[in-house]
């Protein structure tokens, strides 16, 4: 392998291609050109969920960044092409924002030794020294949401709508289940609809929960918008994950676990500035502030429940609580 951008005539209009390719990043003067960052993500960049969390994070960085995005690439080979394309185009950092892109990354990353690849959610870098892995401790916020959910549930029965049993959804849902049961819920009913995309099925799954006496709902992944719709029609409180979902149901979203990747992004970019192009894994969690439980001020949460939530957060940070994941 090894044929990267410098072997090919630069056909794109990007002026920095040559500089970035020929000289390598370590000599790039920090003032000269903005850092070129690209995101490749499976769902829409404004999905109020997984992808948006990363786009928001990059935009939140206090750096001069030129950002390109290829979103909605659920076809893995297409995503691979986009990742490779961004690397060829001379981007400094390419974020492969999807666990499923890992297999492709193993093939691509070695071809572009000067490019830093970010891969998430993932817990190790597969031995590649220009790859940073990142993941959320989604079970932590899940646990907190679970505690709150149990606190406001009257029936003690709580419903969860998931996509496939995969990715960070698994962690979130597991943590949520533990938290809810620790918080005194009688049962937590979990449905995986089998699809990341089928909103209608997610809605019907939520309906099915309601029949079983569920009076609090949560879920993960982009198709939950269907379930949120059901919740809002039936006045059922909802807990969000990945991004702040308050706008989906302003009166009913109690809290959202929001991913603030910028905390670890900054660390990774600093390492790159220092010449370390990868080889480490990062995690956002409640302790490092990468995970934040954002309560909806529009939802009138009883004092006691709020206090329990805060206690749970402290407990997790302090290591006294096991989320069960």
């Amino acid at each position, binding site marked *: *392998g*090894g*044929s990267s951008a410098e*072997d*090919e*005539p630069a*056909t*794109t209009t990007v002026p920095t291609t040559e500089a970035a390719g020929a000289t390598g990043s370590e000599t790039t003067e920090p003032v000269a050109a903005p850092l070129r960052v*690209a995101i490749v993500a*499976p769902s829409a960049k404004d999905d109020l969920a997984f992808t948006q969390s990363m786009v928001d994070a990059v935009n939140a960085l206090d750096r001069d960044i030129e950002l*390109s*995005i*290829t979103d*909605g*690439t*659920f*076809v*893995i*080979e*297409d995503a*691979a*092409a*986009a990742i*490779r*394309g*961004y690397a*060829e*185009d001379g981007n400094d950092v390419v974020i492969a924002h999807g*666990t*499923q892109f*890992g*297999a*492709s990354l*193993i*093939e*691509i990353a070695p071809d572009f030794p000067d490019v830093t690849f970010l891969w998430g*959610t*993932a*817990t190790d870098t597969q031995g590649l020294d220009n790859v940073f892995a990142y993941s959320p401790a989604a079970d932590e916020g899940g646990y907190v949401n679970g505690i709150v959910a149990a606190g406001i549930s009257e029936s003690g029965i709580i419903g969860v709508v998931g*996509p*496939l*049993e*995969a*990715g*960070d959804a*698994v*962690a979130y849902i597991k943590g949520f289940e533990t938290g809810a049961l620790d918080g005194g819920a009688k049962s937590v009913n979990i449905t995986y609809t*089998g*699809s*990341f*995309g089928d909103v209608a099925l997610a809605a019907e799954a939520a309906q099915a929960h309601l029949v079983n006496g569920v009076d609090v709902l949560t879920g993960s992944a982009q198709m939950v918008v269907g379930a949120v719709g059901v919740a809002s029609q039936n006045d059922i409180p909802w807990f969000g994950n990945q991004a702040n979902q308050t706008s989906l149901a302003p009166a009913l979203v109690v809290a959202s676990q929001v991913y603030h990747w910028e905390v670890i992004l900054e660390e990774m970019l600093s390492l790159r500035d220092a010449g370390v192009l990868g080889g480490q894994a990062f995690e956002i969690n409640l302790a490092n502030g990468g995970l934040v439980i954002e309560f909806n001020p529009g939802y009138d949460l009883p004092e006691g429940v709020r206090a329990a939530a805060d206690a749970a957060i402290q407990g997790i940070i302090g290591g006294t609580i096991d989320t069960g*994941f």
Partner: protein
Amino acid sequence: MLSKIVGSAVPVLAALAAFLVGAVMLLVLGASPLDGLKAILDGAFGSGERLAATAVKATPLILVGAGISIAFRARVINIGGEGQIIAGALLATVIALALPDLPSVVLIPLVLMGGAIGGTILGAIPGVLKAYASVNEILSTIMLNLVMVQFMNFLLRGPLIDPLEIAAGTRIPQTQRLSDNAALPTLVEGTRLHLGVVVAVVAAVIAYIVLWRMPLGFRLRAVGHSPEAARAAGINVERNITYALAISGMLGGLAGAILVFGSEGQRMITDGSAAGFTGAAGFNGIVAALFGGLHPLWTIPSAFLFGALLTGATQLQRVLQIPAALAVALNGLVVIFVISSARFRSYIQSIIEKRPSNRASEDLERPYSKIPGVDT
């Protein structure tokens, strides 16, 4: 001769008209069509690697398209490409998992054959159902697509899942990295151009020979044009309908195996939808076949063109931030425009040739009866 040239010009003009609509869409989206065209061309042909990527993208389209052509010639509409690709991929994957240590020279043909067999099985089911139980194949193939997606999810999340995914708790529906002995060898160092491309082209050529140079193809076409006359001549109509769908499925299944063993990740992986694995090749192959006049040989350049459009669309999104959905919409328009021009084309040809526009052939459900440049 003149009529053949004009005849092949008509669908090309129709496609151009569709692209013109695409250009207007770009304008409306606030992008210059010229920049768009440049981005697409650059993304598809801009470098050796991209050219290779385009060829790799075209590979399943060639195979599915050749299969669709055969099916359509026998007047069977195979919309089950997605399911057949998955079936082939699954069987090939299982073989590679079971026999990882076989040497490449054995394992590669074996997994390709496994893919072909998997696809054949999934094609034969609607074939048998149509031939012997009069079940409309459009519907059974659609339904089998739905079944296969779930079956794939079941296997990739359950029995076939990468043990590492369970260990990490992420449970992405993917297999472990499959044996390197099964990896399709790269043809040009430094690009992704792999053996699968050659396999596809050869398969399309064989499909052509079968269809126009072999008794089997003669019978398939006879059955397609007139099952009654074929039957009265002693041709087993039911069996040939089954063959048509089975062969079509076989090529789809082969595409599935190539998708797995020519992939970047050397493993089978999905996001829970069919297209997550197939890249919608089962549908796009129909588009390619159509544009190729339902002729296996013409399907090759046609698939290449649509492969280019698809890879180019990724670049379009990267550079101009135009959603790749534009390319999907454009594909739809190309199908509509080209298929709508078919009648116009035979009409023009009949005028040029000063012959009665083939009266009996007008009740066609099938698109073209004659293909330019090829005497049937």
